[in-house]
């Protein structure tokens, strides 16, 4: 059985201006000890997907339909009190900005111990020892000293290490990391990514990593799901998707990053236009207004999700549908 199975998840936000369909029919699975990266631009629904797994969608947001099966249990159907048994123990989360997710008026050691006392049957001394042990595990140089420090006394990288220690101390089966390195400097980002990889391997945790950075995906992911305007447009094994990107959005996203071997004086591939507003998303394929290979059908009907070859490379795009294969050929002939 897969560790996590998300099926046809829809999360809508009912605002005064209208209903924002932030996540619209998203499905994916995550196996044990696997890293899945959800990648996309701002407003694509990647964070909302993660927040719904851990049950943190609040008003005006609502999970409209769908299932989130965690080891067979549907988290959507659970009561708040039942969900607490999973949150912080079986499923942990770390956020982008470690300063705002730690309590500034409490020592970091106390914040870790508090979590242990809440969820586990341990004495205060045991909890403290365990906390120091985990601060060492996340490679904080002076673990005992850090235990008695306040968050503002730590640098951004150290704070994120504390967050990771806190998230992993309960040995969860699933760690959700929402842009964990975005607020950090590049040399620190590399330290944190290495740390997440090491801990994942030594503790056997599965990871869902949310990011906008294709470099982070390339560094850490086993599987990747590319999101656009509330939908997964392409997903598969990371090597397969990067080597053979099929959806025009994925192709554009990969092409718009300057690489070390991009020739100088060439221009980057850019995707024209902007991310659509989700109150009134475009009809048909949500990407059609910005797509360079648009077909007539794309404006009318939503593309079906299909599997390419015999791998689990999945894509939602009319270009790869059998019915319209002919249209692609002509299109390509004119394009080249």
């Amino acid at each position, binding site marked *: 059985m897969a560790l996590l199975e998300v099926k046809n998840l829809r999360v809508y936000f009912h605002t005064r201006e209208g209903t924002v369909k932030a996540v619209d029919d998203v499905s994916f699975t995550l196996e044990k000890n696997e890293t899945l990266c959800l990648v996309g631009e701002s407003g694509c629904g990647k964070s909302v997907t993660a927040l719904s797994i851990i049950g943190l969608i609040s008003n005006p947001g609502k999970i409209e339909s769908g299932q989130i099966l965690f080891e067979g249990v549907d988290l959507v159907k659970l009561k708040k009190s039942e969900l607490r048994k999973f949150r912080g123990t079986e499923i942990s989360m770390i956020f982008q900005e470690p300063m705002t997710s730690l309590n500034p008026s409490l020592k970091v050691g106390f914040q870790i111990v508090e979590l242990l006392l809440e969820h586990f049957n341990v004495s205060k001394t045991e909890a403290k020892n365990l906390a120091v042990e985990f601060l060492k595990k996340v490679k904080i140089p002076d673990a005992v000293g850090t235990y008695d420090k306040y968050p503002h006394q730590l640098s951004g990288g150290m704070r994120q290490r504390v967050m990771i220690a806190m998230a992993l101390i309960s040995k969860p089966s699933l760690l959700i990391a929402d842009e964990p390195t975005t607020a950090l400097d590049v040399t620190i980002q590399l330290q944190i990514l290495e740390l997440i990889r090491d801990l994942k391997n030594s503790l056997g945790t599965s990871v869902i990593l949310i990011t906008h950075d294709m*470099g982070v995906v390339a560094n850490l992911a086993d599987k990747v799901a590319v999101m656009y305007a509330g939908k997964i447009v392409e997903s598969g094994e990371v090597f397969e998707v990067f080597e053979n990107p099929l959806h025009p959005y994925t192709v554009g996203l990969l092409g718009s*990053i300057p690489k070390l071997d991009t020739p100088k004086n060439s221009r980057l591939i850019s*995707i024209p236009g902007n991310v659509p507003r989700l109150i009134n998303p475009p009809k048909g394929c949500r990407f059609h207004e910005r797509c360079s290979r648009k077909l007539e059908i794309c404006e009318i009907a939503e593309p079906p999700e299909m599997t390419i070859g015999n791998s689990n490379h999945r894509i939602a795009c009319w270009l790869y549908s059998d019915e319209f294969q002919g249209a692609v050929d002509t299109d390509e002939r004119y394009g080249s």
Partner: protein
Amino acid sequence: MKDTVLEVKDIKKEFVVSRFGRKKKIYALNGVSFDLKKGEVLGIVGESGCGKTTLGRVISKIYEPTSGECILNVEGKEIDIAKLDEKKFRSYRKYIQMIFQDPFASLNPRLTIYTTLYDVLKAHGIGNKDYRNELIEKTIKEVGLENYHLFRYPHEFSGGQRQRISIARALILNPDIIIADEPVSALDVSIQSQIINLMLDIREKFGVSYIFISHDISVVRYISDKVMVMYLGFAVEKAPVDVLFDRPLHPYTKALLSAILTPDPKKERTRKKMILQGDVPDPSKIPMGCVFADRCPIKKDICEKVKPEEREIEKDHFVSCHFA
């Protein structure tokens, strides 16, 4: 030199901050020098707190430098703008324009785009009404927007479009230098490349020089002709872009380049990475020796005692390290 538009010599900037009544000096820039030629793009990279933003703001006179020279070469004259007071500098401001990181905060929300651009021309006393209108219409097309956008307010635009407006506001004065402080960092990747392409088009067309400040090294490599690497208020390495990426000499530069993630899983997982220990030190206590000593993997005794001099290793390639 004739085609040098800006020459910065040994610029220093200290801030005095007071915390609970205790005053403390922050050494943001500790003697940075470089020159910028016509049509050239200088990339400045470094991590947070390295002084790259302060440097941009000192050159555009948002901050007054503590010491040093900043020689602007325009209209056949050389002027040290570091010494000018606010009033005297005003007539030179049109030569140096700035684009900021946050396009939401850098446009006045109560003014239409037309008014924003018109006010710029009015403040600098350029042309009469008809000429100004003509210039506004021309400039807005130059940045990829249309006339009907002129009478809208900033909140009606997306982040990428706002950054286009910021570029128009800088470009309309026909500046010699545009200082761009993290101009694409707040934008989504697909929009980033639109703005970078626009900036390159503008350079080609108008021959403007850029000082491009960013923490994103792959963007800097792509857009720059030469690069300056900063650490704790010092320029630790300066070189033409290809030289710097082929033959980085300073251990910090090497670590910084090694931290760039390649968007290709095969290459990314097999390449050799250099992972630095520790964090950037406190800028109120500048170490006696090399600023990078406490994180440096090749540190020797001398590094903690003697500050390394800047040396020219090959043509135009400068580095401050005892062992480079």
